[in-house]
């Protein structure tokens, strides 16, 4: 697609751009879209797209082929959408290049091959309008559930992810067609800066990066702070393992973040913004950088934005692989070319931030929410969610769950609804054991508390935190001692080392938990662990240290019996901890197929083909490859 260059200086021009966008979103011709976010690519989307292009070219089909971001249904990747004019959009899941010719062959009669399709439709909360082709208004596709009927999407309200998986992230026109940059126009031309801050405050929006600080209060502090210039930063250093919503937004809808930041700059009197992105997200860096250049060419960044007197520019800074840089003072240090060590607060970045100037740092999701609040008004936004947690939150629902997905639900939705209804529960008839939220700063919430509403306060009360929104479902195959060890390993590795208590405390805690996982622990160790946990939390400077004990404390609180099993009985109930398990082959079930032999790292499996194999315990490295490769369930874990 050749990009038309627009000079958007007024609302009329923005509307003209939007018309182009509508024509490419909903063209008069058949359009094929492939979800090309990082997750889609990992599942093979590039090969699918290539095949689509090949078939279209070879058969000289008059179809448009385009890319989109990720709609969030990770377990169905690669996703392929088909738009036939006059009909709802139809989505196909787990598409392989081999299926592509069949899917395309059914198109000339404007029929879609429904055997492979998974859903239809979409909607747009930014404008509050549902385009006539979508659910409820347009023609339905018989035999195919509509988007809004599926358990995965039924409970969702997609504000932050409004455009992800719908539009081409490289198309400013399509973003405008979905209502994009209209909120910016409204802010610049119909609102005073203080009014924008008031709207954000009244909306009840709280920071989506983890701590949940009221965004309006932060903005007010930056507005009131003396000193200039002022800076606006987007924290896209999404370090929590198990959370990838920021990547999803930057890859799927980069302009939403840019628009939010320009509005923020206007409200706060800042003319410069920095987006700090993890280096581990190369595609996100690429897409946001491209979107910034596009916005610059179109006069949406630079001087006299949309004909107003507001000037704003954005640059991108890449992280260098340090988890602690998600902490705001460490992030600022990193942008300034220093090591990412947190600084004591106050002074808060709102007073003394980047280069010592007043700085407003918000997370990707927070920035992407801002245009919707401006467009729809604070009253609309604060009508969603709970008393103290307003709006929606994106969660990455992963781990042992049928629909692994990026989902966005109103605050206050219960964990049970999220895991069982949206996520479709644990596959294979297993039961939920715990849900881990909040990354390394969070905790494990046991299955008994699944009716917990997901909001900042409830999660804190349960000993976890909202964090950036990772939600890892664990079943009886997960050992809670192992999980505690995993997070301690993470934390002691990522501790910047500034505070002794965090640096050494997390190490000592890891040593103790490791000892327990090896069956060498004592009950006294649990007391020492709790003491250490308290000490680390009380005496560390930044959020990494003060929340570091959470994974240990929450597992001790809810799963003490598992620790005791490791200590008293020297067993790992989940059969995970290597030192406490052994692998054997069941002589009755083993048919001697030999699939396990070539994979055995210790060359511990001996026997004869078509007869019986046995595992020599002394040589076994407990890599578990035999268990994974055996199709007859003959490998036993004891």
């Amino acid at each position, binding site marked *: 697609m050749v990009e038309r260059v627009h000079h958007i200086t007024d609302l009329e021009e923005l509307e003209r751009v939007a018309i182009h966008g509508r024509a490419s979103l909903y063209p008069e011709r058949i359009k094929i879209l492939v979800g090309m976010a990082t997750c889609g690519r990992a599942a093979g989307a590039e090969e699918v797209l290539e095949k689509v292009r090949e078939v279209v070219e070879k058969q000289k089909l008059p179809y448009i082929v385009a890319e989109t971001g990720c709609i969030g249904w990770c377990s169905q990747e690669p996703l392929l959408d088909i738009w036939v004019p006059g009909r709802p959009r139809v989505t196909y899941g787990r598409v392989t290049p081999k299926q592509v010719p069949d899917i395309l062959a059914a198109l000339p009669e404007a029929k879609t091959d429904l055997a492979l399709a998974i859903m239809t439709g979409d909607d747009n909360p930014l404008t509050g309008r549902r385009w006539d082709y979508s659910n409820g208004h347009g023609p339905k596709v018989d035999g195919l559930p509509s988007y809004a009927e599926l358990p995965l999407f039924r409970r969702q309200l997609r504000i932050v992810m409004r455009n992800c998986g719908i539009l081409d992230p490289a198309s400013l026109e399509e973003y405008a067609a979905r209502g994009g940059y209209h909120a910016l126009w409204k802010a610049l031309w119909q609102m005073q800066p203080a009014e924008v801050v008031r709207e954000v405050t009244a909306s009840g929006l709280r920071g989506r990066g983890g701590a949940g600080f009221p965004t309006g209060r932060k903005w007010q502090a930056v507005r009131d702070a003396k000193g200039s210039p002022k800076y606006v930063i987007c924290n896209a250093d999404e370090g929590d393992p198990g959370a990838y919503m920021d990547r999803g937004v930057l890859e799927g809808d980069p302009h939403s973040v840019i628009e939010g930041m320009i509005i923020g700059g206007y409200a706060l009197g800042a003319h410069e913004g920095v987006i700090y992105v993890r280096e581990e997200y190369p595609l996100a860096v690429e897409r946001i950088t491209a979107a910034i250049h596009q916005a610059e060419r179109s006069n949406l960044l630079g001087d006299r934005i949309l004909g107003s007197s507001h000037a704003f520019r954005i640059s991108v800074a890449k992280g260098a*692989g340090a988890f602690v840089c998600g902490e705001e003072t460490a992030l600022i240090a990193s942008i300034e*070319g220093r090591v990412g060590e947190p600084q004591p607060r106050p002074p808060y970045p709102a007073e003394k931030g980047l280069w010592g100037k007043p700085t407003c740092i918000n997370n990707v999701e927070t920035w992407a929410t801002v245009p919707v609040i401006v467009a729809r008004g604070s009253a609309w936004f604060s009508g969603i969610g709970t008393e103290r947690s307003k709006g929606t939150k994106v969660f990455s629902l992963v781990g042992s769950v049928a629909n692994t997905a990026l989902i966005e639900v109103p605050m206050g939705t219960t964990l049970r609804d999220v895991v069982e209804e949206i996520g479709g529960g644990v596959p294979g008839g297993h039961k939920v054991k715990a849900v881990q939220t909040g990354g390394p700063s969070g905790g494990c919430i046991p299955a008994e508390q699944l009716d917990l509403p997901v909001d900042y306060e409830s999660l804190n009360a349960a000993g976890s935190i909202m964090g950036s929104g990772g939600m890892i479902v664990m079943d009886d195959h997960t050992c809670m001692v192992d999980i505690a060890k995993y997070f301690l390993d993470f934390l002691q590795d990522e501790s910047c080392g500034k505070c002794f208590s965090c640096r050494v405390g997390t190490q000592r805690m890891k040593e103790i938990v490791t000892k327990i996982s090896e069956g060498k622990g004592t009950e006294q160790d649990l007391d020492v662990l709790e003491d250490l946990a308290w000490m680390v939390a009380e005496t560390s400077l930044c959020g990494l240290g003060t929340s570091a004990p959470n994974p240990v404390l929450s597992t001790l609180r809810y799963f003490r019996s598992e620790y005791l099993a490791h200590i008293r009985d020297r067993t790992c109930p989940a059969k995970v901890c290597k030192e406490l398990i052994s692998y054997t082959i069941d002589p009755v079930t083993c048919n001697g197929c030999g699939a396990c032999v070539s994979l055995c790292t210790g060359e511990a499996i001996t026997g004869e083909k078509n007869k019986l194999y046995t595992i020599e315990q002394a040589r076994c490295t407990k890599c578990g490859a035999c268990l994974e490769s055996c199709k007859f369930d003959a490998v036993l874990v004891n």
Partner: protein
Amino acid sequence: MPTVESPVLDETIVDKYEERRANLVPILQEIQATYSYLPEPLLRRVSRKLHVPLSDVYQLATFYRCFSLKPRGRHVVQVCLGTACHVRGGPKILDRVETETGTVGLGTSPDMEFVVETVRCLGCCGLAPVMKVDKDVYATLEQSKIKRVLNRYRKKRPAGKDATDG
């Protein structure tokens, strides 16, 4: 282009940046991307050029995970150890990668073909366990797939992949 095999250092990498401390990390990132490590002569030049003490440059180079002071293998294998990958068998994938490449723990393989690293979440949690080889992400891995994936890079074929491995 200079590589691990022929480390002809191109000092213009450093010179094209403005003399601002904020450019320190970006310059180091470009050097790392070009040579797959940070050669000492270039660090010295960075220090002189930006008027930053060499000790500060060294501090940055050793603080951030993405920098290496030693030459690394040709292909970077990053095994994800995020939480979702951890509960879905990421550590076993790591063990298998180490066995297949012959590295002892993390680091560069004896044949300089691979450098094995862990990464704290690639953000593909929905398709766990995953690993990245150079720029390609491989999803829903099993131990039995590792050898095939790595062999593709050993043979130095262009980095394409077919969906069946995905």
